[in-house]
């Protein structure tokens, strides 16, 4: 299988897709405010006419490039391109101010690649066995698994649990619109045929992440980056021995990123700060952290890149996205006929392994292109919103239309954009909404199928070792969350 999958990669278009994706990702990621989620959502329509393997590789290349691109503005301007780069900015910007910006970016790049390789290996080791195990799941097991995933997002997603619960429920309620999954009865369609298909994922994503950004910038009308001077970039090198000295930090940070990534809804910001704090607590020279310690750059970068592979484990094996970006990638897989879930590896194993191998191998062009393009990307951080956002508006309209060639989807995108603006201004988190939208309908379907099977008896949810295990996990999560809340010092 691995050899056959590798042979699938020996195609010029695959190489072109990977290179274009990484370069586009580095440039887009370097622009503050344009994260990988928006970039991938806007680029999905471009992949419609492509074969599934190069299409997904292009989008994953954008993701990889954007995570590194986010560290460019974080290190050189103290303006994180993505929220997860905020931890990188602490020591990266301190290094840049003393003229070591180039070194800081090299540490960030090598650590990113290390985190990516580590999480890809975990992904390749875990995803298929997990999918094979999930083949034994019936509706009751699937319902409990999705309940567990939704609960994890609410309890451990960071921020207010009440807000996360509201967003999960908003997503689940939005998923109700359309035809009932069991009886086919129209629900909240208001007599319109267009509503019968429900809200499509990609237009909602484009609205929530791209259009809402346009509306937010119209509200704030502030430059993405101020007039701060870019510190001079001197020629520099990072020797292998310097990376070898921080091998334990890189390994622990990658472990944290991968395993936090597997948990749904937490994203890459939390593991980046967790790794930064762990690296500082383990360091013999902890006082140097915050003043320009290379390990302070490497630790969060390894962690936030490792999240990709980790988040793809439940996304591909179970159809449960780990964060907003993997929710978008899940949408891309579905559009290309590769429906994530337990059957993905059985039905499309070759394509999936080719994508895994490409993700692993793309570390090489990421290093080369990262070193080549970070000087170019500095200029990109200076782009003003008024130059960029009209193009994003046009691409958002085009992207939403092209999913089903329907203007109804563009109206949905605009509605999602307005709601996204209100939610973001009000401080409500968007990833739980997205995951609620994706999991709401299958959760209801599994729940009702299980209850139909049992004749309405709730005992089915504790009727097998798997469901008992999942109920125990749910109980454990609630207990951990409660304990953490009680221990947290009140201010």
């Amino acid at each position, binding site marked *: 299988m691995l050899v056959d999958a590798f042979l699938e990669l020996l195609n010029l278009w695959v190489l072109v897709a990977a290179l274009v994706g990484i370069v586009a990702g580095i440039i887009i990621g370097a622009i503050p405010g344009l994260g990988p989620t928006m970039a991938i959502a806007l680029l999905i329509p471009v992949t419609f006419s492509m074969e599934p393997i190069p299409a997904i590789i292009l989008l994953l290349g954008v993701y990889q490039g954007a995570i590194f691109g986010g560290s460019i503005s974080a290190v050189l301007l103290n303006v994180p391109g993505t929220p997860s780069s905020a931890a990188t900015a602490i020591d990266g910007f301190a290094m840049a101010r003393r003229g070591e910006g180039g070194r800081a970016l090299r540490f960030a790049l090598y650590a990113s690649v290390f985190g990516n390789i580590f999480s890809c290996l975990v992904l390749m080791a875990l995803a298929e066995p997990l999918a094979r195990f999930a083949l034994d799941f019936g509706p009751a097991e699937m319902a409990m698994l999705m309940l567990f995933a939704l609960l994890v997002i609410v309890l451990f997603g960071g921020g207010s649990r009440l807000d996360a619960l509201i967003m999960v*429920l908003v997503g689940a309620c939005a998923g109700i619109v359309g035809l009932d999954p069991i009886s086919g009865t129209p629900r909240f369609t208001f007599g319109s045929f267009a509503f019968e298909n429900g809200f499509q994922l990609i237009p909602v994503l484009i609205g929530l992440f791209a259009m809402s950004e346009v509306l937010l910038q119209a509200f704030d009308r502030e430059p993405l980056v101020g007039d701060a001077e870019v510190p001079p970039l001197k020629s520099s090198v990072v020797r292998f021995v310097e990376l070898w000295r921080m091998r334990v930090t890189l390994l622990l940070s990658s472990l944290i990123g991968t395993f936090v990534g597997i948990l749904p809804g937490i994203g890459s910001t939390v593991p980046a700060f967790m790794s930064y704090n762990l690296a500082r607590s383990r360091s013999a020279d902890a006082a140097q952290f915050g003043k320009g310690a290379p390990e302070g750059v490497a630790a969060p970068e390894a962690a936030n890149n490792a999240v990709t592979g980790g988040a793809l484990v439940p996304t591909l094996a179970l159809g449960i996205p780990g964060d907003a970006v993997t929710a978008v990638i899940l949408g891309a897989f579905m559009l290309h006929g590769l429906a994530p879930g337990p059957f993905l590896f059985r039905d499309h194993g070759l394509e999936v392994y080719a994508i895994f191998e490409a993700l692993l191998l793309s570390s090489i062009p990421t290093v080369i292109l990262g070193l080549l393009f970070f000087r170019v990307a500095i200029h990109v951080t200076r782009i003003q919103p008024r130059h960029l956002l009209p193009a994003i508006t046009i691409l958002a309209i085009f992207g939403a239309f092209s999913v089903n060639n329907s203007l109804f989807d563009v109206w949905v995108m605009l509605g999602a954009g307005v709601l996204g603006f209100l939610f973001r201004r009000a401080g409500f988190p968007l990833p739980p909404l997205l995951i609620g939208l994706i999991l709401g309908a299958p959760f209801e379907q599994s729940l009702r199928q299980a209850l139909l099977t049992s004749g309405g008896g709730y005992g089915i949810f504790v009727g097998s070792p798997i469901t008992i295990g999942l109920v125990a996990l749910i109980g454990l999560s609630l207990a951990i969350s409660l304990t953490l809340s009680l221990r947290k010092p009140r201010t």
Partner: protein
Amino acid sequence: MSSRTGGGFARPGFRLLTTGLMLAAALGAIAVLDQQIEIFGFGDSGPDARSFPRMALWLLAAVLALRLILGLRQADAPLGRPVRLGRVLAVAAATALALWLMPRAGFFVGAAGAGIVVALVLGEKRLPALILPFFIAAIVAYGGRHGLNIPLP
């Protein structure tokens, strides 16, 4: 955002507005639920097509009501000057107008128009920069139609 205000109620802001709107929508959906979801009974036991929506909507209304009560005494994101909200409305209205126009005037005209309005709202005054959305819309329309075979309006 979550910090408490002194003693009285907080000044209403985006959080209160959004929570209030969502609560109104949830209650509205509950009110029309029976009308919007017809049930055809086949004698099955267990939940029907209305059960999950009813449960999810009531739960949502309850947590929103709780958020509203808790939010009354917490500092809120200010709504800001009317001109700022006016800019948001202008962008949303221009995009809506573009969508309404698209079946009649085509994708290119609608998208270019929306792009130019966005540039103007964001403070662009220079003519070359205002023409930029025009070229972007042309490239996207041409590429979409001929490169990706998408039947744009």
